[in-house]
């Protein structure tokens, strides 16, 4: 009996390994767990369209072709940023960045749900892109020269203009950084925030004492117990913590975010250098959400706009692909319709995830149309 019981554990593993090999092949060859009907359509549609536009040279091993044959977009996100990317109790991803993953998937595959979300840490995000583990990185990543240059990534149109701000208690009566002589300012360690803080304060000739923390929750505890006078971080983050400030501490009104912005943080989708076709695809998928806002087209009225007369409104007709205008971006003529029907335009995405009516309650400010005093400006689609 003893021998037999010893044999059992020795027997199981080789068989499990066998299963491992077959399982691994399956994982690489196809991706189960997605709506199959849609997938088949997409796979069929992808190459066929390329053939029709045979005038453009479409490299078969480019990211665009890979995504189409895979039938799913691998999108690198952050699963821990309030409003931008998080997991709901129902086990789905939601947030501003997540919706832009869906925008790209809708544009390229015609299915906003054909996304595989890969949660990445700050350290791993660019490496994952370089290793082609993900097709596109939409993970509150600031567009900087160093990343654009040495790190070999290309940044598409900025989706969110953020900036480093300073939050103080209303009772303390600070109205600008210049008032904050001899204060303690709390920040996260190892981020560029620390450096920006130093230059902002020395520019005003104000002395301060920095206090650094590993994560936002301990920082919050320190701020609650009055260990710091100021809390500096990206304004979108500060807004999230302000909105959730406990009512027995005075609620959101007990805090105020100063108007000053200490740094520019344009958060942009990133793709790998050297694949211009894919970059164009991602870039114009993002631009389309802004262009749609300019046109006043959103998910509720896109079907009405599909009926416009091309003679009367040629810009909208071109944008929605009504007259089969194809600028050779590697996208279907009606890609904007897929984006709008399945996700929506920029304004809808913004207001759903981070806008004034959400937990973050962010006023658009810079993230508004250029006609409204913001920075969102779509190049003409013609």
């Amino acid at each position, binding site marked *: *009996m*003893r*021998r*037999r*019981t*010893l*044999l059992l*554990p*020795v027997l*199981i*593993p*080789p*068989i*499990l*390994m066998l*299963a*491992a090999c077959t*399982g*691994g092949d*399956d*994982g*690489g*060859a196809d*991706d*189960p*767990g997605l709506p*199959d009907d849609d997938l088949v359509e997409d796979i069929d549609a992808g190459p066929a369209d390329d053939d029709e536009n045979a005038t453009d040279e479409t490299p078969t091993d480019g990211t665009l072709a890979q995504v189409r044959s895979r039938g799913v977009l691998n999108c*690198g996100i952050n*699963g*821990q940023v*309030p*409003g931008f990317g*998080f*997991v*709901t*109790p*129902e*086990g789905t991803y939601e947030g501003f960045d997540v919706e832009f993953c869906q925008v790209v998937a809708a544009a390229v595959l015609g299915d906003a749900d054909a996304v*595989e*979300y*890969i*949660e*990445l*840490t700050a*350290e*791993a995000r660019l*490496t*994952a892109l370089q*290793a*082609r*583990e993900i097709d596109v990185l939409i993970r509150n990543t600031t567009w900087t020269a160093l990343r654009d240059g040495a790190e070999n990534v290309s940044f598409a149109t900025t989706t969110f203009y953020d900036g480093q701000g300073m939050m103080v208690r209303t009772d303390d009566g600070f109205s600008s950084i210049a008032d904050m002589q001899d204060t303690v300012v709390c920040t996260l360690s190892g981020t560029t925030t620390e450096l920006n803080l130093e230059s902002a304060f020395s520019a005003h000739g104000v002395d301060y004492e920095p206090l650094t923390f590993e994560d*936002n*929750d301990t920082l*919050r*505890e320190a701020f609650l117990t009055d260990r710091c006078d100021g809390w500096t971080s990206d304004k979108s983050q500060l807004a*999230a*913590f302000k909105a*959730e*400030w406990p009512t027995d501490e005075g609620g959101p009104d007990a805090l105020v975010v100063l108007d000053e912005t200490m740094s520019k943080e344009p958060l942009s989708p990133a793709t790998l250098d050297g694949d211009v076709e894919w970059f164009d695809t991602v870039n114009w998928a993002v631009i389309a959400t802004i262009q749609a806002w300019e046109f006043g087209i959103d998910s509720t009225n896109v079907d009405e706009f599909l009926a416009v007369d091309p003679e009367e409104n040629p810009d909208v007709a071109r944008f929605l692909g009504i007259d089969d205008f194809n600028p050779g971006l590697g996208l279907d003529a009606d890609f904007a319709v897929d984006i709008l029907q399945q996700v929506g335009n920029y304004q809808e995405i913004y207001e759903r995830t981070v806008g004034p009516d959400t*937990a973050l309650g962010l006023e658009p400010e810079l993230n508004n149309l250029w006609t409204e005093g913001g920075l969102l400006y779509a190049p003409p689609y013609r």
Partner: protein
Amino acid sequence: MSEIKVHSSEYRPPPPDRPPSGTRSPGVWVRQNLFNTWYNSLFTLILVPAIGYVVYRAIRFVLVTARWEIVEVNLTNLMVGTFPRSELWRPWAAVAILALVIGLGLGVTARANVEAARIRGIELTTSWQQNARRAAPALLLVAALVTFVRTATPLILLAATVVLAVAGYLVGRRIPPHRRRWMHLAVITGLLGSYVVVTQFDGVSLDRWGGLMLTVFLAIGGIAMAFPVGVLIALGRRSTLPAIRLVSVVYIELIRGMPLIALLFMGWLILPFMLPVGFPTPGRTWRVVIILLLFTAAYVAEIVRGGLQSIPRGQYEAAQALGLPPWKTMRLIILPQALRNVIPAMVGQFISLFKDTSLVLIVGLTDLLAVARRVTQQPEFLGQGLHAETLLFVSFIYWVGSYWMSRESQRLETRLGLGER
């Protein structure tokens, strides 16, 4: 020689004579153990209030102040991560299959033990206290989960699973000895079946698993595969063939010289580059399992080598004298003794692997700990400092798993008579 001792845990000798108990009242015990010298009295006076206060605060937190709704709302998240909710029947089916085969296996083993003891003239009985103690970790986990479940369906399914396990046990006890061979096949089929039912037949790719399900899969996958590989490498290191010995030594030293995080990163990002062109890249999760397997196998190999070295030469010579060929010597004489000697170290390694699986969050997998960290970022729980609740819950699950492994290894040790000769 010591065949009877093999089952000595089930055979309970009459308890040894207790020291006369009447003379030791609680007051005497306290005086003898806590206040026997002036410095011990001092320690007692300082430590008892301190420990008492900590325990009071801990219990107060768990029962009164903690806001457990974050765990209640996210229980499914913690169990399976972002696994598609429409496919939840698959993990449940897998759990049911596992419950059945584990019950079956326990039933067969229980009967085999009874029969083996009866042959030696011992009537083996297991008291319910013994059984309860053995099941305690699992019961604790189930109790914790039941506390947080808010709907009826999971409770019904959980009850059905328990019924299946008990049914499996009862069936297992009825299997006659000559059919037992087939039971091993059934257990293996069940293990494979539970994997197949989740991933195959339009199932859910391994890369979409998460939460406790992923943690358990990584741990079991890693342990089950690292064990045989480690044994092979240990034998390789003691081989008389220089090439095999060299390869084994290089492997062990290379892997043990690298941090697990570095290996995980390499497996995640560099492995795809090293595979031949056209070779399908294994999914992310399988790459992580392979790395965990390679990492643990190196440590297991050294542990097993320690066990092999503890076997005296006489054992080999005796086996040779009996005319056993080398591989039979190894399988029947050396390995059983060597492995038995290293159970504590081996289980320690496995417990460590179980907890090391939480490192996979850096390569984009969302295991139990990763889910716990991110649910605090949901809008309804944002910035309320609920880390304590989620981390406590997750720690409890890790603790139950580790404690269970530790207890089972102790059981195995006594059953195999470790430390008794």
